[in-house]
């Protein structure tokens, strides 16, 4: 089985996520793009595990999922709180911690 399409798919997904993080202002969208990048890397890990015939990459993918789940909990909570106090979900508005 050729692994090349999976890697290409993974790269495309990662690039979409990357561009999304850099260009979108809405915090929820940025967040979703981060998830996209994580899952792109998960796909790459699983693909390499398959290619190498061992389980290390798959275990790595599980770790990423666990961390991503935890991150979602914390991240969404922060976005919710900021939205409640500032009535905005734009990441550019939350720029008080500077200089």
């Amino acid at each position, binding site marked *: 089985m050729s692994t090349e399409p999976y890697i290409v798919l993974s790269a495309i997904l990662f690039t979409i996520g*990357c561009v999304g993080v850099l260009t979108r202002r809405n915090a929820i969208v*940025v967040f979703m793009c981060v998830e996209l990048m994580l899952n792109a890397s998960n796909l790459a890990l699983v693909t390499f595990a398959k290619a190498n015939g061992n389980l290390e990459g798959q275990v790595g993918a599980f770790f990423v999922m666990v961390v991503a789940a935890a991150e979602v909990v914390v991240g969404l909570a922060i976005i919710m709180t900021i939205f409640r106090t500032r009535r905005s979900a734009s*990441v*550019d508005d939350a*720029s*008080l911690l500077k*200089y």
Partner: protein
Amino acid sequence: MSVLPMLAPLAAEGAEHVPVVDPSSADGVFTLMWVVIALPLAGAAILLLGGRLTDAWGHLLGCLTVVGSFAISLAMFVSLIGRADDDRQVSQHLYDWISVGGFKVGADLLYDPLSALFLLLITGVGGLIHIYSIGYMAHDERRRRFFGYLNLFVAAMLVLVLAENYLLLFLGWEGVGLASYLLIGFWQYKPSAAAAAKKAFVINRVGDMGMSLAIMLIFVTFGTISFTGVSEAAGGAKESTLTAIGLLLLLGACGKSAQVPLQAWLLDAMEGPTPVSALIHAATMVTAGVYLIVRSNFIFDRAPDAQTAVIAVAVVTLLWGAIIGTSKDDIKKVLAGSTMSQIGYMMLGAGLGIAGYAFAIFHLLNHGFFKANMFLGAGSVMHAMDDDVDMRHYGALSKMLPITFLTFLMGYLAIIGFPGFSGFWSKDKIIETAFVDSVWIGILATIGAGITGFYMTRLMLMTFFTQKRWEEHVHPHESPKVMTFPLIVLAALSVLGGIMLLNDWIVDFLAPVVGTPVHHETEVPPIVITLIILAVVAAGVATAWFTIGRSEVPRVAPTQVSVFTRAARNDLYGDAINDTLVVRPGTHVVHGLTTFDKSVVDGAVMGQASATGGLAQVFRRWQNGFVRSYALSLLGGAILVVLALLVVNLG
């Protein structure tokens, strides 16, 4: 017992044999050697640590410890006399003090005829001065502390003269310096006393630097610093090395003994209480330089150039001190100038080598008696005159203070060398020996004796004779018995000190330490020299009588005086010389260093700090708070890492 293997004594070339220190182990009464030091040390510890608890009886304890040391010293002296001539060096090993690789220093004590005489002087005269201080300091609320310092001084001085190696001697040397500093500045609320203490301490540092360099050079040259080892090995060293050691030791001696060029501190040291001036700055500590040179005779005897330097310093100082003494109105400063001058005579004796060592020590002991006597007498006069030190305010006190007057008279006759009194014998011998060495040195020493006659007569006349010049409210009264008793004992010793020269006893007694002098005939018989000295002294006394005794002494010092008087009043510009040569250049150097520190060193450090700050001002703009720009940096960084990995792995 010596820690070094006994080498065969090296025979010195020439007729005069330089003796080797070769002590036997202490036994019998000599095992108490350490107690002599321990007693006053314990006294000092109790008095200084005990605080107010010891206020009531502290002065009595202070006296007891020194008198106890005197008793032991006397017992050891008697025991030493009973031994054979060549068995009179006893040493006691207390413990290993320093042991670093090849450098081993033991806390060893050496008791020989030289130490024996010093022990008796320090504890005997010291004890008398302690007793005198009970009365003199009776009204001082810090009397207990005073006695603590005095005991500390006595302990340190005993370490100095009992040490068996140069380092232990240096310990005592610094100890007496510390005690001297504490006691000069005893009335530290007086700015002049605090400044005088500092001055003494700082000038002594210069001498101590020479002393410590000498010890290092001795160790480098001989591999040991014990008197035993050095005296055995000295014969094999190069003369240039010995000369260097001798000159460095002389520098140390100059500092401690107030010899030119390090003489300036002694006159200011008179700010201390009078018993301190008597004990430290007349009888004992200031003679430590003479002790050092006599103790190091095995070095100086083989370094004629160093001996010449000692003689030069001595002659300059004996005239310098005497000239200062002629025009001071402060009774203690006259005596201080006189002390400088008399130590000059001792140094002269010590510089003359084997022929003079014994006479230097002889004069040192006599001077200890008569100068302590006169200082205590001056203290008694000050006591009677409400602590006034200006002789122009005295006059005609002989009837008011009969005991002080009579005892002072004995000291006076001793110092000017009146025939039969102690100073006559010792000074006469030193000048005679100087004439054998060189006529010019002899002549200069004789002139010094004449000036001594002048200034001492001036002091006597202005204090005890001439017109009554004190104020109405001053009521001179004789001092209490506790103060007159030491005066009487010291006066008796001033009269009788000469008996040490009977049958050349002191010369023979010290021979195991300093060698046996070869008798040289002078070109003229000694009696002629004695008569010349007496004539010069008589001329000095007569001059004083005609210029001061027969005329009215003004109550305020006249200001229209000759340039010589003005120079002598200003200590021959000793302070001005020090200021110009040392203090002012030193200040300039310090100013330069301060500027360098502020501009270059501080500039570098502060510049670095402000450069970092300025850079941070630029870089902080990156922290703009926009998450997406941070993400871009993150991406850029990740790309860089990937590129770097690619370059490393593929390149």
